């Protein structure tokens, strides 16, 4: 299979990830639940994973690194902490349903979309500046659009939010493990990310980076292995947000994924993915009838390219590619907001998304298949 759907989940993982998960099943019980060797090994593994993540994202204390089930889980915690009924929230025009649906579930939330054209970070910033008002309770922005690979100006946005004293939530679902992100320098309230995409951990893992100035709202209550006499959830992290038994095979796998990312280096991973994306984008543009969403120099874009074609519905093209054992994602990508902003909500797009394990011959084979199908 040629796997080009890493924006959904990275499929090829470093071999150490599966090995660590198998070892975890044999050797790790539950962290914070005992003083015997299997519990201590689990505690050690989870602490090492928090520490690796804290170093990768410049988080001052490992306690601020909370394990979640996925990015959506972390986004829900953050949104339900920052947003109350009647709040005003400003979001980018490229947000995923993982952001817009939790907002829609809170009564009477007023959402302003800071809409700006694709690959124009300056205009994104201007749109946010216009949309943020004195009554704004939170700003939410993804680092990279899951549909278009558009790299949004989160560093400049963080400065804007800091100056206006508005909490910022960053969805790093597509950037974690690819682009640098300095949590302490950003001063964001929360950063949510999956463990199973660019961090190369298994499905069922996610991470929420928490600013200690915000007491997060709990989505679940239960045992934490701490302050057990009290019926309120602990106020300290990570326990406050980690009720119940941890996904230790997942955390052990995530630890190895993060180690792989740090050993490989973000710069190398990003350069490789950009090179593949640029090749795919430029060659797709040569196919008659295709509309490819990228700038010639791949400015403000990384790892993901979307396209559509006059000749064929995007889902049909996806099916035909699947029959050739080529995996791409078609349709609206759970991000109707992004498609509305880009004007592709009627057609959807075919999305090609890369990982560090993809190779140029795979891109060449994909391009050959698209050419043949569209002839």
């Amino acid at each position, binding site marked *: 299979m040629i796997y080009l759907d890493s924006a959904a989940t990275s499929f090829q993982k470093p071999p150490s990830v599966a090995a660590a998960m198998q070892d975890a099943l044999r050797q790790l019980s539950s*962290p*914070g639940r*005992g*003083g015997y060797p299997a519990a*201590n090994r689990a*505690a*050690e593994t*989870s*602490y090492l994973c*928090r*520490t690796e993540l804290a170093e990768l994202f410049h988080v001052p*204390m*490992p*306690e601020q690194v909370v394990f979640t089930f996925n990015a959506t889980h972390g986004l829900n915690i953050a949104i339900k902490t920052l947003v109350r009924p009647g709040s005003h929230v400003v979001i980018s025009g490229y947000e995923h349903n993982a952001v817009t649906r939790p907002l829609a579930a809170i009564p009477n939330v007023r959402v302003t979309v800071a809409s700006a054209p694709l690959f124009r970070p300056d205009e994104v910033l201007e749109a946010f500046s216009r949309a943020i008002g004195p009554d704004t309770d939170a700003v939410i922005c993804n680092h990279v659009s899951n549909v278009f690979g558009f790299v949004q100006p989160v560093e400049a946005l963080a400065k804007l939010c800091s100056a206006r004293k508005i909490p910022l939530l960053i969805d790093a679902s597509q950037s974690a493990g690819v682009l640098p992100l300095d949590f302490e320098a950003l001063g964001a309230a929360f950063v949510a990310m999956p463990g199973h995409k660019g961090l190369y951990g298994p499905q069922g893992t996610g991470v929420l980076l928490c600013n200690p100035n915000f007491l997060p709202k709990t989505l679940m209550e239960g045992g*934490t*292995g*701490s*302050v*057990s*006499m*009290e019926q309120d959830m*602990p106020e*300290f992290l*990570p*326990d406050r947000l980690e009720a119940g038994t941890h996904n230790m095979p997942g955390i052990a796998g995530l630890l190895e994924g993060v180690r792989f990312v740090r050993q490989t280096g973000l710069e190398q991973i990003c350069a490789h993915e950009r090179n593949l994306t640029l090749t795919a984008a430029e060659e797709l543009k040569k196919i008659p009838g295709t509309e490819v969403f990228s700038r010639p120099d791949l400015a403000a874009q990384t790892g993901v390219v979307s396209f559509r074609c006059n000749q064929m519905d995007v889902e049909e093209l996806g099916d035909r590619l699947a029959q050739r054992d080529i995996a791409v994602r078609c349709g609206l990508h759970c991000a109707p907001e992004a498609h509305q902003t880009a004007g592709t909500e009627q057609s959807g797009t075919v999305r090609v998304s890369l990982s560090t394990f993809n190779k140029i011959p795979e891109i060449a084979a994909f391009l050959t298949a698209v050419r043949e199908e569209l002839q």
Partner: protein
Amino acid sequence: MEHYVMIARSVTYAQQMQSVLSTNGVRSQFFRAPRELSDRGCAYAVRVPENQIAAALAAIRNARLAPLKIYVTQNNKYREAAL
């Protein structure tokens, strides 16, 4: 030899204290706090030899960490330390 026991609010916090101590050359042991020392129920602790308690406290404070309480062991009994 007497030991000092620093009570942490969570397993992660105890690990963080142990990591800081290790970085600063202080030997310590991480363990589950005795029930009599965890009045809010379930805690972890870090044990430090008496001759390293001063270095341990300096390291912990420099790292802006704060044990919930510190006890000293005496004849196999715990007494809260006034430090």
